[in-house]
């Protein structure tokens, strides 16, 4: 219930700002954590130039449609692509109203280190973050079942 309210609030904020994509810096890891305020959430890192990421975004788009309370943060690593392309991709999968961020540091390794020193940039990369902040990393495409399973367990 808490999550639903929070997500609702997040969605309202997101739509009010008309599909904002926030700059993801080294401090944003904590900002994302604080934003979900102790609720479990899923953080997904993706890129336009990663074919499996598109499949994952499509899955997430469908899930968000069916489960508008899905606590998910999306982070695009496409800081070298025009912002319009990122927005276009988000719109294509109908996830522009989700909690969207985009890498914003000249040294992406700094962000990778802040997120997870054992992540080397392979995509898609996801983190299931539990209510107490425990993170479980996953490289590669997430199945819909994996996401649903995580939702049910939490």
């Amino acid at each position, binding site marked *: 219930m808490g999550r639903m309210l929070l997500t609702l609030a997040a969605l309202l904020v997101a739509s009010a700002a008309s599909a904002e994509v926030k700059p993801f810096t080294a401090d944003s890891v904590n900002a994302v954590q604080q934003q979900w305020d102790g609720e479990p959430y899923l953080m997904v890192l993706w890129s336009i130039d990663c074919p499996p*990421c598109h499949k994952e975004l499509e899955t997430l788009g469908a899930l968000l449609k069916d489960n508008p309370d899905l606590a998910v943060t999306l982070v695009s690593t496409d800081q*070298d692509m025009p912002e319009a392309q990122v927005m276009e991709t988000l719109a294509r999968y109908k996830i522009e109203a989700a909690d969207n961020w985009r890498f*914003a540091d*000249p040294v992406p*390794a700094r962000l990778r280190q802040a997120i997870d020193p054992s992540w*080397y940039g392979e995509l*898609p990369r996801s983190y299931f973050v539990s209510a107490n902040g425990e993170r479980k990393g996953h*490289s*590669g495409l997430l199945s819909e079942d994996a996401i649903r399973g995580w939702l049910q367990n939490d």
Partner: protein
Amino acid sequence: MEILNLRLMRVAVMAAAAGLASGGVYAHGDKHGAHNDKNGGHHGAAAPAGPCADPTALPSLNCAKSPTPAFGRDGRLWITWYSRGHIYIQHSDDNGATFSAPQAVNSIPEPVDDQGEDRPQVALGPRNEIYLLWTRKLDKPYTGHIRFSRSLDGGRSFSAPINVNDDKDVIAHRFPTFRVNDRGEIFVVWVDKRDLEAAKAANKEYAGAALYYGVSTDNGATFQTSRKLSDNSCECCRIAMELDEQGLPVILYRQVFDGGVRDHAVITFSDLTTNSAPQRVSDDQWKLDGCPHHGPALAASGDRQHLAWFTAGENRQGLFYAHSSKDGFSKPMAFGGPGAERPMIEALGDRVVLTWKAFADDRTRTFMQVSDNGGDSWSAAKEVINTEGASDHPLLVNDGDKIYLSWQTAEEGYRLTPLPESTAEVAANASTKDTENHHEHKESL
């Protein structure tokens, strides 16, 4: 990573942090910018600033994203890079201290893949023919054609680019690399999705892409029909190619093995058009339904092949080195430690050099390890140079005598750094450096 845009962004962030309406002149050697980046600033509000961001400025090597060098057999260094629709080339006769004026290769502009894993490249023929190779981006995402241009007059003029891939389909032909042997035969290898597209059309499963190959025996006037070397290669990793003692290709690449395991394989040749089956060279068990964007590196010297690669597999994680031997391949040796990425390797006789980069203590640092016995034993890892801002993959290049680190950084521009020639030289250099930078060294490794 796009150095140009990143630099632009960084300047904008600095400008925002300083409360300026628009960025001032980009200052080389600024020591505070990257730290300030962490404090935010408005993303995407990049105001034009600095010589590299000025759309009317002349194209410059120091503003290029992924400049790639090669030495000719006459010792002249050539370097190629991309800017705003054009492939450029320059040469240097003083090992990169000064360069000739940039010359545009293609007269008609075309969009080009220009990033660490898929970058314009130059190779020199036995009579110093200049050959250039790049991926032209097509209208659909992840599609491209392999493009080739040559100069037979020392770089005064370049041929109109031709496609190396023999099909015209708007699909992925990407991540090319090439070599020219002493007979002047040109070998090109690339990632090709024609088999994936065919499988899709037939409603069949097909993992990854395929490896295709083209050869030219007429100094690059034409390429023979594209030949498939392997199905199910990784679709987003650079390929490494070197020449064996017969001047035939040795290819190291990431293959998608059964179950979606992305480990490495080697393909060798017995003549221009006869290749071995892929031989698996690592059992890392990296099962990944995703993009590593992290291809391997290869060097060949005598009858030995030297391999370096990255994996995040079940059996191994990090950077690894192995060499071929009569009994197959040596046991993988870990190097680089946590955070190490982008391995490169170069060999000259029994001298072998490994490099990589790693982000540590708020700077991106390049490191090396040297062997003077064909990779049987190695020096300790030593830092070479570092940078505060954005950087390209560090590359290795040799002039037949020395091995150099070639590195593009947003802060310092292009740098070619000669590397030590022996483990003794590394050790001698290390003892002085250790006293000066003991903390840095310890922390970094």
